[in-house]
């Protein structure tokens, strides 16, 4: 799918968000294209999660627009996101705890065709076929990430690192062009981290990745571009090396130790 490489998938255009008197984002603009891995970093309370939430439609921008070039729309609601080719994993694992791993992954294909009310209720042959296809697909996605052995387990019964992979598998079910990861490294130990990083690099061939992360040892080698927020404003943008040497970023975020 490398022919799509470089094609823009998401663009924030001078987005501001106010919460009451508090300005969580101020005139923030950046974008992500297919095939690149972008990191969003900044001090606590800088507005990173808010930026994610604006993209996903959980928060309405007070000013500015979020564009989704693939479907040529802006300011979507969260449930329209997967149709815009964007999948997001949640902080922690965010799996459905009462559903098996397989069902969790099948849930990722919720928006596929032929699964509407009538097809479900009447059990049309078309609906039955769609469901079978969904199940097969989910199994092969699990297999692709090497976790198909836990398909029938409940999320609570599988190791944390595996659960993170399952949540990525779920995201992949909608065949996204952009994968958004919210603090993916937290809770993983160092060996799990490097495995996870390898997986993300592997995915890059077919999609863009946008991630929020505080673990610099994980982020720096992984990403191609960093966007740094502070008090809701973009204070720097560039390659990891550029950002690491940016005085403002060091003062606000990294500290001298880095």
């Amino acid at each position: 799918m490398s022919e799509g490489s470089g094609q823009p998938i998401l663009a924030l255009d001078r987005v501001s968000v106010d919460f009451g008197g508090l300005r969580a984002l101020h005139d923030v603009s950046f974008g992500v294209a297919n095939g690149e891995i972008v990191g969003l970093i900044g001090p606590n309370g800088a507005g990173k999660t808010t930026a994610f939430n604006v993209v996903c439609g959980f928060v309405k921008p007070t000013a500015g627009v979020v564009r989704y070039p693939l479907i040529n729309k802006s300011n979507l609601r969260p449930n329209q996101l997967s149709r815009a080719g964007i999948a997001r994993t949640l902080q922690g694992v965010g799996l459905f705890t009462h559903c098996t791993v397989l069902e969790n992954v099948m849930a990722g294909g919720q928006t596929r065709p032929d699964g509407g009310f009538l097809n479900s209720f009447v059990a049309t042959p078309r609906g039955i076929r769609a469901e079978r296809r969904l199940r097969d697909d989910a199994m092969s996605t699990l297999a692709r990430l090497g976790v198909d052995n836990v398909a029938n387990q409940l999320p609570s019964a599988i190791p944390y690192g595996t659960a993170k992979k399952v949540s990525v598998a779920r995201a992949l079910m909608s065949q996204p062009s952009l994968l958004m990861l919210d603090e993916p490294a937290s809770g993983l130990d160092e060996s799990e981290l490097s495995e996870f990083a390898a997986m993300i690099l592997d995915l890059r061939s077919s999609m863009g990745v946008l991630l929020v992360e505080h673990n610099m040892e994980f982020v720096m080698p992984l990403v191609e571009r960093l966007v740094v927020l502070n008090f809701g404003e973009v204070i720097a943008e560039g390659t990891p090396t550029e950002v690491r040497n940016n005085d403002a970023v060091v003062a606000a975020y990294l500290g001298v130790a880095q």
Partner: protein
Amino acid sequence: MIRVQGLTVAYGAVKALVDVSFEARTSAITAVLGANGAGKTTLLRTISGLKTPVAGSITHDETELTAMKTEDIARMGIAHVPEGRGVIGEFTVEENLRLGALTAKLNAKQSLENQYERFPILGERRRQHADQLSGGERQILSMARALIANPSVLLLDEPSLGLAPLITAQIMATIKDLCASDDLTVILVEQNASSALRIADHAVVLNVGHVVANDVASVVAEDENLRQYYLGMVS
């Protein structure tokens, strides 16, 4: 000082801790390390009475803790910053802090001011509901709420989770200071072994519920075996 002896804890048939023994000395930071599911959280929860052990004892300055209720343990000055923050979302920042100060019977106003001074970001948000804080801000609030009661023992479950590098460093420094000046006993659980070992005096390494190392922090940090097999550190 916290002394853990022969501690075994189980969830149903699954043993999360098996015969764990170690000491956490006063005025020192004891790091508890280990991979996911090693039993670190379980250990802290057992110390603060949220989980009843199958066998073993936990004493705090000669007081046996295992038979006590959580709230009584807390009232002895053992503060626990739980995994996943545990701030009360429907409360304002200030109410969360007030709740933390309740049992300590301190001058509420003064202790609130102290925390706002230490963590200015909380001062700015004092009337905001904790639900609306960012992830890191919640982590800071949780820490402040534990510190406000001037505890004698501090149990920290992955305090750096979601914190920016700068503030992580700042908090670690604060803990180190308190430890030295206030006779504080700290048990620090960390996923991120390297940063924990940097400030800890002593380290206990758990592997699927068993203690595999219990030594001075620097010794653990140097041990290539431990690093590779139990701490998941990539050399």
